[in-house]
């Protein structure tokens, strides 16, 4: 084993310790810096990163499919990460909404004034459109940006390409 690998593993472990991990049933606030740590801790998995908001009806329509997608593919290393784009000051309302409508859909909520600040961690050229879903490969690179609502079948097809 080279010296580089243990250091990298240590760095990832530290990042994981420092990142705001999601509670079993909670909505976690995250700054851009904190969310970068969350992503770093997911290296080695295929991440389905979904940007949503309570006021975005197409977002809400696809949430059950995203939850189902993770359920189907978790054993193969697929992780769903959701980030709510509602105003951070609306945390309590967003959490109540999530619990009522999508209790299995755990999510972060941006803790930044602007939506773009947090999303820039993943996509510096995001055009502030919802829903946007990023497929991130096991190396932590964005493999695909999907904008607009998609069906479960469409998500399955896209994610399968990253699992081969």
């Amino acid at each position: 084993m080279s010296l580089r690998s243990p250091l990298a593993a240590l760095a990832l472990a530290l990042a994981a310790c420092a990142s705001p991990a999601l509670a079993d049933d909670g909505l976690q606030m995250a700054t851009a810096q904190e969310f970068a740590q969350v992503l770093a801790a997911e290296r080695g998995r295929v991440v389905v990163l979904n940007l949503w908001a309570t006021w975005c009806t197409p977002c809400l329509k696809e949430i059950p499919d995203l939850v189902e997608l993770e359920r189907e593919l978790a054993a193969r290393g697929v992780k769903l990460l959701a980030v709510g784009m509602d105003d951070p000051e609306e945390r309590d309302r967003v959490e109540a909404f999530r619990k009522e409508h999508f209790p299995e859909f755990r999510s972060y909520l941006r803790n930044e004034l602007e939506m773009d600040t947090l999303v820039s961690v993943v996509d510096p050229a995001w055009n502030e459109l919802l829903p946007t879903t990023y497929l991130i490969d096991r190396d932590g690179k964005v493999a695909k940006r999907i904008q607009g609502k998609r069906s479960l079948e469409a998500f399955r097809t896209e994610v399968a390409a990253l699992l081969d």
Partner: protein
Amino acid sequence: MRSVLFVLALCLVHTAHAEGLTVSDPARRGQAPEVAVGPDGSVHVIWLDKGPVGTADRHGHDKSGGHSHQSFTDLMYARSDDGGRTFTEARRVNATDGDVWGFAVGKPRIGIGPTGIVHVFYPANATSTRTGKAVASSVYVRSTDGGRTFSAPVQMNADAETDLSELVHGGLSQAHVFGTMAVAPGGDVYTFWLDTRDMTAERTLSSIFVRASHDDGATFAPERRLFTGDACPCCQLTAALGADGAVYLGSRTVSPDNLRMPTVTVSRDRGEHFGPRVSTGGAPWTLEGCPLKPVAVAVSGEHVYTLVHNGAEQPPGVLFARSVDGGRSFEPAIRIHPEAAVSDSPALVSAWRGLYAFWHAKAGGERRIYMRTSTDQGASWSAVTEIEAPAGAASYPAAAAMPDGSAFVVWQQGEQIMAAKVWTPVTCRLCGSNGAS
């Protein structure tokens, strides 16, 4: 020889701008600025105040205003009577703490009447008198004392009879927001907003409503539905006025197969009737989602100009389109900043010196504010120029025309609101004066 060099220099420097200044309180978090210029050259800026810098956002529901709050935002106002060199201390426009609903792409609007009356139109937290449920409404206030005080808020939309919480979401049972306002030199005030009251489970789209005043905002005619159930519900409306009093309205329509089309419609009878909405072009953009993209509009005679974000372009970016027949048709759209990785948030101003286009874009770093100018009615454009501003993210520009033909631009700089005056030389052809102010 010196004069030749002088003129040559003018030809090379297409645009210039004064150093930006901070308008908002540096200790507070500002967002979503808008600007208007009065007939006397006074500059009026409004923006959202999200609370003190470095403090946590206020969470949850509060009853301080007598109804459920979906957000805790205030609306601030400041004015300049020296051409934008200095501004008054900011004053709060909304009567009740935290009553404003807006955000970066759901901005409040401001306009100045012929006698200096300050008109403000903004989205507000409210409770429906019909259903008792939380709604977001459009509110109008005005100041007849130069912005020192504002009138009591007048809700412009009627409360809907139905509770559409299961369609509207976002903690709201109805939304009557994402509006715009145009104030004519003669004292006509036009307010428009997107309204969810015609939404159905099959078509979760908005209608467009209007209320107009013909006495400088003293009274308004009842609301009227202009277009029913086919407008993008999150793409803020925009309006512009022609010198002949024609009212131009920018919006996005949504087809049954989710084609998001930027359009312009015009009224030539003081807002009584509007013509068909005409597409401003660009690649067909099909999306089942929330674009949050307005259609910026400006007018000069029979020339109508638009600046819009199009997500179907690669990379996604802002397109300029021009009509030379009063908005009946548009020439093919062109990219305004082809080199940018992404460009968005367009603003467009028609002044007597020329046409000014502003937007924010990422071109190798953080978002910055960019501009181009045209002195031939949009036929050709200056090079892309970055507005000089402190390091860091700069975004969401808005602009208004100054009496001297320059433009006054405001934007969000991090969590501050900044402003600068920009201008373009009158001509590059041996004009003998640079026209700079």
